[in-house]
């Protein structure tokens, strides 16, 4: 890994991908457990858990890979999480009965030490920070 150009998976990004990966693992574990043992109890909450788990996995891979296309995928998935944690977090506080059960994003990710709340914003900052110098999206970075 001798590249010096900013890449989403190097330097600080190495830690970011690690934390994303751990959260992705936690979310997958949680959702498979919920789907396997008690899906019918709270289908909305458990579907949401599964969706968030999938998005965390895709975001982790996208941040680790970091090419021009993956960078777009990373922007979309990380932004999705930012919106998701704010929306579900707010909804879970205002009207807890909607979900019936807690999800990764309930209470703004309280059950995970608020990591799900902080992480997407750090991710967005990092994607912005490591953006390619020149404006056209595809060509220059592919040459790096």
């Amino acid at each position: 890994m001798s590249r010096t150009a900013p890449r989403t998976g190097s330097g600080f990004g190495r830690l970011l991908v690690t934390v994303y990966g751990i959260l992705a693992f936690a979310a997958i574990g949680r959702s498979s457990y919920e789907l396997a043992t008690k899906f019918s109890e709270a289908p909305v909450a458990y579907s949401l858990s599964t969706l968030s788990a999938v998005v965390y996995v895709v975001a982790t891979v996208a941040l680790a890979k970091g090419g021009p296309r993956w960078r777009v995928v990373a922007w979309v998935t990380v932004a999705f999480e930012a919106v998701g944690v704010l929306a579900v977090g707010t909804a879970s506080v205002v009207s807890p009965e909607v979900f019936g059960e807690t999800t990764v994003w309930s209470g703004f990710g309280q059950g995970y030490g608020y990591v799900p709340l902080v992480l997407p914003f750090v991710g967005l900052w990092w994607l912005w920070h490591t953006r390619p110098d020149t404006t056209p999206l595809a060509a220059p970075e592919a040459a790096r």
Partner: protein
Amino acid sequence: MLLPLLILVVALCAVLAGWALWFVVRDRAVILRQLFGAAAIEAVLVVQAIVAGVLLATQDHAVDGPLFWGYLATALVILPVAAFWAFAERTKWSSVVLAAAAVTVAFLDWRLWQIWGAA
């Protein structure tokens, strides 16, 4: 019953995390000897899995099976993946990654012990 193993895992994780953080301060990347440390923790986790399996098979101990094994599997996967991921980076950030993984494994093992006692 799993308490001594929990204490051992948490202690080893604390040592590894401290070692890695010392490397962060010194601006150094992860070295092979630290990966051997991670392997030692991994070995204790495997022993823990075997002990738990034997206890569940032979004793009348109720535990939330899927939850317990899910946490155990996650704990087992984290260090090898993180070690591989950290070692590919030759900056101090590799040491941060290893420290984060060690702390996570300690936390997971503590949760595992809770789940073991809860049922």
